[in-house]
């Protein structure tokens, strides 16, 4: 579905969701910031994704406790045909940041939700696979490095006796782990491939062994012009 102008899109959204849209703004052309009630995330995301054919891009979690007394999530969608970016922004409780998971509507949101859960401690209710994604398995529970009160150079003691919890293989399937180490290329990753005979019937993934926390370094120690050099090395 194509909208002629962004105000057409905004009006339609406001009509449909009324009180759940708290405010909208378009500081730069075709970048629409929509402040929403956190309870409405599933219905609005479903409308954008299934109804309008928008593409889900990522979730941006921000610890705004020092400035706004809350956590904020931004679900970034794009309406590619209309050349529009839509940023759905919700304010979460500073003591119990939680909201509904949208992974059952948009499978591609699983990693973004798990990452925000690891790094900021935002809980996504109803997330089918809430295992750790970005943090190492021996990282202590309830310690979220992207929170503002976490010093960038703090190294917690590794927890002993923990390991990655692999998914159960289907019955009759043989597990073929590929990885996690290979020195030649970019990053190590573990694909646990489930096979029956030679045919792959499923796969479980564990990656992020190379997570370097560059976002944390950037917001704690670098300036804008230093960041462009770091960004190039991602």
């Amino acid at each position: 579905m194509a909208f002629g102008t962004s105000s057409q899109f905004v009006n339609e959204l406001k009509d449909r969701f009324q009180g759940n849209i708290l405010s909208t703004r378009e500081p730069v052309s075709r970048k629409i910031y929509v402040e929403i009630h956190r309870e409405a995330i599933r219905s609005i995301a479903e409308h954008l994704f299934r109804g309008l054919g928008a593409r889900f891009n990522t979730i941006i979690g921000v610890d705004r406790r020092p400035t706004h007394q809350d956590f904020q999530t931004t679900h970034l969608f794009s309406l590619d045909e209309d050349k529009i970016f839509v940023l759905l922004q919700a304010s979460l409780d500073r003591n119990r940041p939680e909201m509904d998971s949208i992974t059952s509507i948009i499978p591609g949101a699983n990693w973004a939700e798990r990452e925000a859960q690891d790094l900021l401690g935002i809980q996504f209710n109803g997330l089918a696979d809430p295992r750790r994604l970005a943090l190492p398995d021996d990282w202590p529970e309830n310690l979220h490095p992207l929170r503002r009160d976490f010093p960038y150079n703090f190294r917690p003691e590794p927890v002993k006796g923990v390991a990655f919890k692999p998914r159960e293989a289907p019955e009759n399937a043989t597990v073929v782990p590929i990885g996690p180490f290979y020195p030649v290329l970019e990053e190590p990753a573990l694909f646990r491939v489930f096979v029956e005979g030679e045919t792959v019937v499923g796969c479980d993934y564990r990656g992020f062994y190379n997570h370097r926390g560059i976002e944390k370094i950037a917001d704690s120690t670098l300036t804008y012009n230093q960041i462009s050099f770091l960004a190039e090395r991602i």
Partner: protein
Amino acid sequence: MLELERIHSHPLWLGIGGHVVGFDTVLMQTWRIREPVMWLFEQITGNRKTFGMNLIGGVRRDITPELKTKILEVVDTVEKEWLKVIDAIGSDTPLMLRLKGVGVLTHEDAVDYCVAGPTARGSGVRIDSRVDHPYAAYEYLVPEKKVHEGCDILARTLVRLEETLESVRLVRQCLKEIPYGPIMAEIPSEIPPGREGVKAVEAPRGESIHYVLTGENNRPYRWRVRAPSYMNLASVPVMIRGVELADVPIAIASYDPCFSCTERLEVVNAKSGEVRIYTRKELNDLSRKKRDR
């Protein structure tokens, strides 16, 4: 630079793809074709990779008239040779058998998993942030979206083959139409805090998205990066369902994220608990043996 990047990256991918399926001639030829592009980078920026060109407000070096001539010469050669590569690959029956119908990511899955770049375009998703969300000079240089409906490794390969030629065209147009002028804008004072911005750039592997919320002390309060492989990798479990084990390396490689999953492979028989470790060589041999069947 963004297009030259694609001109070096797609041949790099194709070479490794060729290597993974046991067709090393592809690797040798594509990397030979790519090398002069790397020399160009060095002449333009001082580096082969990680160019260090960008600052807030502009770039650090300009393109001289001599360089312009040089770039045109190089892309001419790349184009000529790339056409031969396309011809050679298209007429190679065993290679086609390895790529066609293998590693299928259906159009529906591509949409549901929100994949990016050639991975998406190979499954018929018509996205390309150069066209959809124009940045830099892409309002003036409009690339043609290269989309294939095959949803398999072959479709992803064709997208990259065609995009390389399209990039050659864009480099030419760019050099012809680029205006002379300052390469850096003056930024009068510190960037004020509390402002937000989001931007997508179509990298060779798909769109890379950056979000910035500005903060105090000339640094961001929050900087969020979403690389294209982030979305693509998450869909690997869906894409490799149904492929044969020997096709897993090329299927994963077809996303252009991480080829060396072939480094070490351990087969555990779930029932007996028996463990067998395959080395990278053994797995590559397994993959190549399939080609010779």
